[in-house]
């Protein structure tokens, strides 16, 4: 086996990102779409940390810290919207969210 280089970590992060993208596009339940979004964010975070290590520079890890904070905020708001959608439409699949179609 070859040594683990930065490329290994970045390829792994791209793979996690692609799996998350697949989930976002295929699933219909909004909760699972949210989970897949978190997967994509995890992939990008991994790239940030890998570059931070590669260049011996702390900025990538600090940025990951802020990405995690924003991800938590995003999850809270999205779940509030999902619960509101569930109350109005009795279901949480994307087909339910057609209110703006008029």
């Amino acid at each position: 086996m070859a040594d683990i280089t930065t490329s290994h970590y970045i390829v792994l992060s791209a793979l996690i990102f692609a799996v998350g993208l697949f989930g976002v596009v295929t699933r219909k339940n909004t909760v699972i779409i949210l989970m897949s979004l978190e997967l994509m964010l995890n992939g990008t975070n991994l790239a940030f940390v890998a570059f931070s290590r590669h260049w011996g520079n702390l900025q990538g890890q600090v940025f990951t810290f802020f990405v995690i904070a924003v991800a938590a905020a995003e999850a809270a708001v999205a779940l509030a919207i999902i619960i509101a959608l569930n109350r109005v439409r009795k279901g949480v699949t994307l087909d339910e969210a057609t209110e703006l179609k008029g």
Partner: protein
Amino acid sequence: MEGLGIQLAFYSFAAVTIGSALLATMAKKIVNSAFALMATFFGVAGIYGVLGSDFMAVTQIVVYVGGILILLCFGMLLTDRVPDEFRVRSPRRYVGASIAATLTFVGLAWAISGTAWARLPHITDGSAEALPTTALIGNALLTDYLLPFEFASIVLLVVLVGAARVARGGTR
């Protein structure tokens, strides 16, 4: 043989991460997705550990497993009326998604493997060479990044109040 240990750790954590990520996106029941997602978060935390960023590994576990996943579980419990099976209702959509995800990954991997990372100019200031990184990150957050740090706390406060308002519903 320190190198072999690193390789072993990297490949096992990578296998756990990718396997459970695939399971999370394709599981038949939402509960299985949530548990697979937990394994994914732990796997990513392990990769952070292999990378030597201990603070991010712990933050990953505390915030993602202890916070976001619990939130997702509450969302799942409060809304799950129709079990969402992973049905291939329209194969075209499934095939299209597979192609899109594969193309994304192949494009990124092509760009990554075509870049000679080792020959890029180093912009290091030596700030992340030492271990543990917790004190370094704490110093950075309270000096260079103080404004974004405080701003993040305000964002979180506003978001939580707003989320409670939206989830509770109308003016009753």
